[in-house]
């Protein structure tokens, strides 16, 4: 029983954490380059819709994922256009994207599919399947089902943590991206385009958000439903801040949130010693409570990129 419990908790944690990881990485990239990104939620939602709509029409997983990433990148560019090109307020632009997406996806879904904002469920062949379906029998519950029982996107998300880390800390481009978030004047003085670097970061951010949205539709469920992201983008944002804008700690935060969510599911209706049955509301508030407490306890000052939220005005 305990092995089964551990295996399923592990599996569930990874599944729940995957969209958070992808979005948190997207946030890390954008914010390290100096652009606040509150639009993670909206981009993920639109990407989910695109994946569902295109997946239904074309019946191709690849095209669905391409569409998801494409639309998320476009939204990132829109964010960039408002905040980098025209130096608009980054918080306002991000929130605006979320609100537009919330309404627009539902309207488009109703108009195109006439199912009250939902899309028709995707067929088996379009959805992402576990890479090694028989792993549970061969390797046991914990390794086989907990670690090896997932689809490709889960491992992609984990691998991308390494990729983003490598990019940020071991490449010249990463150095420039970090520099543009800390001191854009210097980058400009060195002869590099602040605007181009920020757009580049936003493009990568879009691709990651697109993958997160595609995961929701292609792996976790099989259709789009209005507002199906249900606050995951904000959770990812919290995880990113919790991880102090660094990929690996952000991964840890996402896994912690995923784990708390999984535990919350298990604790519902269970009688704890001395306390009795814990109300659903208390259990479900747990991840958010943890976030607030941990943020307050662990976040020191001056960890955010210096130029975060400040549009760059080129000096002449």
């Amino acid at each position: 029983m305990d092995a089964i419990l551990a295996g399923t908790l592990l599996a569930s944690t990874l599944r729940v954490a995957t969209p958070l990881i992808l979005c948190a990485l997207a946030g890390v990239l954008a914010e390290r380059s100096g652009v606040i990104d509150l639009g993670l939620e909206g981009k993920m939602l639109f990407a989910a819709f695109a994946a569902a709509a295109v997946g239904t029409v074309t019946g191709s997983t690849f095209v669905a994922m391409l569409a998801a990433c494409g639309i998320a990148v476009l939204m990132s560019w829109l964010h960039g256009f408002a905040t980098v090109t025209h130096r608009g307020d980054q918080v306002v632009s991000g929130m605006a994207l979320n609100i537009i997406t919330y309404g627009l996806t539902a309207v488009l879904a109703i108009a195109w599919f006439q199912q009250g904002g939902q899309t028709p469920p995707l067929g088996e062949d379009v959805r992402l399947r576990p890479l090694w379906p028989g792993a549970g029998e061969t390797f046991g519950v914990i390794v086989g089902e907990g670690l090896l029982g997932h689809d490709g996107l889960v491992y992609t998300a984990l691998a991308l943590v390494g990729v983003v880390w490598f990019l940020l800390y071991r490449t010249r481009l990463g150095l420039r991206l970090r520099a543009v978030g800390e001191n854009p004047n210097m980058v400009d003085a060195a002869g590099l385009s602040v605007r181009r670097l920020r757009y580049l970061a936003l493009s990568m951010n879009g691709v990651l958000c697109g993958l997160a949205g595609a995961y929701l539709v292609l792996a976790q469920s099989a259709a789009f439903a209005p507002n199906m992201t249900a606050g995951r983008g904000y959770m990812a944002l919290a995880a990113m801040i919790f991880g102090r804008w660094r990929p690996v700690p952000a991964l840890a935060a996402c896994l912690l949130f995923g784990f708390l969510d999984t535990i919350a599911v298990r604790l519902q209706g269970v009688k704890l010693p001395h306390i009795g049955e814990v109300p659903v509301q208390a259990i479900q508030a747990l991840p958010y409570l943890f976030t607030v407490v941990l943020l307050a306890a662990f976040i020191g000052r001056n960890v955010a990129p210096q130029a975060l939220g400040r549009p760059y005005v080129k000096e002449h």
Partner: protein
Amino acid sequence: MRNLVRLGLAALATASPLAWADPAIVYDMGGKFDKSFNEAAYRGLQKWKKDTGKPVLEFEIANETQREQALRRLAERGSNPIIAIGFSQAGAVEKVSKEFPKVGFTIIDMVVKHPNVQSVLFKEHEGSFLVGVIAALTSKTGKVGFIGGMDIPLIRKFQCGYEQGVKYANPKAEIFVNMVGTTGAAWSDPARGGELARSHFSRGADVIFAAAGGTGLGVYQAARDAKKFAIGVDSNQNYLQPGTMLTSMVKRVEVSVYDALTAHKPGLTTLGLKEDGVDYALDQYNEKVLAPEVKKKADQAKADIIAGKIKVTDFMADPTCKY
């Protein structure tokens, strides 16, 4: 003079606003094509429209504050009767029905005690009892699940009835219960629904009853992926995943909507198994998975409930759900 008064009164009595105005309907959050509760109301409306050829005004709310505005607006335009779908419209109906005493209102799933309001309640506990019996008899592991949408008394009513049915058919059965959330978002989070279903399956459950609106679709998908059974709710949802949908607990909202449109009767209407207001669904999509002996037992339980031999506790009457 007296005759004139009498004539006037008679004219008033016959010229009920019903004769002139188009009826209207206000759907609950989730929209009219939710494949579940609202869609059942929509079907009743379509049937009435087809039968009578008369138009009906429809309103789909997009947020909580629109309920009252929509109801008032429709009443002002002279719609009659106005049907409000869903328990959460009770507050708005209460307020607006007072302002328009001559307009007939109907509310589904809640009681509003005004002389011009018809309240329709369903005995969901009876229908849930039946699908509980079916779940327990079909389960090979003796473990079944329940996934409710928002944690509200109405959903607890489903849960309470289901638990009684499960225990009635198999006293040793184990039941896992999860509520998706505590806000309206709980009705439309299929990803979380799927996650909850997987957690039930991993603990050994092989049948799950989902009373969770749009979130349920995620549960049915997860059941299909795991090759386990799921039970639908409100509308007949058997067609959604043929082969893994064991049955659906249907709530004939369409019938109550049709009846309210045909003849508006203020007061309380309660529809249970006896009135054919709730039932379990059997059609070409689930006849292969619903075993004949299970069906027989379910029909027996149904007859016993109607005859009063089985008493199903109503969560609304007894929030401790003792049975």
